[in-house]
């Protein structure tokens, strides 16, 4: 008996849940092609209440209002540029997700590339320095002979496995 109740409740949920969701679609434009345009434009506009969302993503009341405004303007046949201009006039460049290229936003646009260039320059300079340092590390003839002598003596005593670490030690002494 109990499981029947649960079943009925679940059945009700299954039947009525989509109705709740359907409420949000009230504002849908009949023409899906037009709705696509509305969404594309809404995706270019920042929600000013929750600033890291577009008005397409946000459900803040202002975002809903602005999206309705976009829809109205699309329905009356205005172009994307017209609509974005309309928003910029009212909310400033900030409302655009892609800031326009102009003097005040130049650093924003070229900043990352500037940092990348600086990074590459630092890297190149360091690499050059390192190769220069390596060539200095070449041993002189006497040093080389001494090294060979030490290695031979060591390997005869303890076997070849230690020779690597010895080589390292000599290297450390040098530097």
């Amino acid at each position, binding site marked *: 008996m109990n499981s029947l109740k649960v079943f009925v409740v679940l059945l009700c949920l299954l039947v009525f849940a989509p109705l709740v969701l359907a409420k949000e679609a009230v504002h849908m434009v009949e023409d899906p092609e037009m709705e696509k345009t509305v969404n594309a434009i809404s995706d270019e506009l920042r929600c*000013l*209440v929750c*600033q890291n969302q577009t008005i397409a993503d946000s459900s803040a009341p202002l975002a809903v209002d602005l999206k309705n405004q976009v829809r109205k303007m699309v329905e009356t046949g205005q172009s994307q540029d017209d609509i974005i201009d309309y928003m910029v006039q*009212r909310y*400033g460049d900030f409302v655009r997700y892609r800031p326009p290229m102009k003097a005040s936003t130049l650093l924003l646009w070229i900043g990352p590339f500037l940092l990348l260039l600086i990074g590459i320059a630092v890297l190149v300079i360091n690499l050059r320095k390192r190769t220069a340092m390596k060539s200095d590390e070449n041993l002189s003839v006497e040093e080389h002979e001494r090294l060979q002598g030490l290695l031979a003596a060591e390997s005869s005593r303890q076997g070849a496995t230690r020779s690597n670490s010895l080589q390292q030690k000599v290297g450390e002494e040098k530097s």
Partner: protein
Amino acid sequence: MLRYIVPLLVFLGVSAFLLKGLELNPHEVPSPFIDKPAPVFSLQKLHAPDTSFSTKEMLGEVWLLNVWASWCVACRAEHPLLVQLSRANIVPIYGLNYKDEPDDARNWLRQLGDAYVSSLIDYEGKVGIDFGVYGVPETFVIDKQGIIRHKVIGPVTPAALDDCVLPLVRKLQQASAQMVVKRTEVEGCA
């Protein structure tokens, strides 16, 4: 030596940016309307829905437009200051009742006092969009030529009123109808 100085300079540079960043409020979006004509509108009055108010009536006068709503908590906080200001009779304050139920709005004013010469019903929020309103409350200072000279985002504080809004209003009132007074001329508005 350079290997110590360079990281130090980089660190100081980053610190300077971060320190500046602490003072900025990312929620304050600079208004594109400063020094631009206020959008023209005509709306029903809250207390006399049969009559309407048009921005054209205000040409030749300095006035404040305060965007408010009964559902807005911060409006409740700033309201006593506006009531006080209206009693001082310095500058007329008009209210834009933004996306509100007129009955709720009238009740709210009855409870807290009415600071406005008139409140205007913007039920759909369309005029709000025209003014670039993105949060309530917001307060616009409009000059004799109908040009917006300043916008206070969020509740008006006593400090903002004394340092910026009132000095600016006085300057604008003293100026002749053709004279241009910008908010940059008032130190407290920077």
